[in-house]
């Protein structure tokens, strides 16, 4: 499988999906007008990867987003949902949701994901502010 590497733009985050290293990182801001167009290929790639990866392989996912619009919100949740399904199926996944330490709403959003996706090992932590 080919790694997915997408550079950040003003409206879309940096994506590093390294199959070889079993890590997925999404970093930056996400507010494209058409979030589906941005996330659909990533979601498909993640789905295919999770199907074929072995249960012994440790997988790490990092979501570090300062801001995302409403349509990105639903798609980010769908990525977490895929990870949760794979964890339920026995895959060895650790996910991290990073939020602005000052922003309670973004922290709550992470906790809501924890509540909803109980099969996934999901850490909610403040990111370092430069």
């Amino acid at each position, binding site marked *: 499988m080919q790694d997915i590497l997408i550079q950040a733009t003003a409206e879309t985050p940096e994506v590093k999906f390294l199959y070889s290293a079993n890590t997925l990182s999404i970093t930056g801001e996400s507010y494209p*007008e058409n979030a589906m167009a941005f996330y659909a290929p990533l979601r498909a790639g993640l789905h295919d990867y999770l199907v074929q990866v072995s249960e012994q392989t440790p997988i790490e996912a990092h979501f570090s987003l300062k801001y995302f*619009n*409403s*349509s990105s919100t639903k798609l980010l*949740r769908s990525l977490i949902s895929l990870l949760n399904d794979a964890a339920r199926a026995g895959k060895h996944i650790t996910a991290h949701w990073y939020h602005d330490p000052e922003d309670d*709403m973004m922290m*709550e959003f992470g906790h*809501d994901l924890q509540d909803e996706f109980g099969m996934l090992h999901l850490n909610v932590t403040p990111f370092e502010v430069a």
Partner: protein
Amino acid sequence: MNLTSFSDFCAQAVKEGMLFYYTGEYSKNVIAAMSDTLRHRLDSTSLSAPARRKIFSTFVEMSQNIMHYVDPDQDGIKVGALAVGHNGDKYYVMCGNPVRVEYVERIKEKVEPLRSMTVEEIKSAYRAQLRNDEHEQQDDLSKGAGLGFLTVARDASEPIEYQIVYRSERQDFAEFYLRAAI
């Protein structure tokens, strides 16, 4: 507009704490330019990071709403208005756009309930909508996640306000105005 009207207009904008105002064609490029401008202006204030995020978020939701839902006019142009400003410490974001009269009730049904909800009720409605995987099947008019107005209401610090304005020269369209204070 003559120069006297223009200077009155400018003075009024300053008096109302307006940071910026745009009316006219909406396109991807216009939104990108406005996003940049608003970002720079917000970064030069002493507002906290969450407050800046909320103002920017409200601007994005309103702008993308215009892009998604406004019917192009006879020249294929989507028209909308948007303003950002502040009264003292409180910021406001407002938008206005034409809507087909047959959609007015639908918009009222979505916005009106948000006005009387508590913060906790808005958060719980937001959560329920986020987890609603059937939204796309149930609502074939909605192009987003059904979270747009909820996001605006969630980021606002007081109930959002709206107005529907009917003009006699256009029978099939009304104007929808929305205001959020942050």
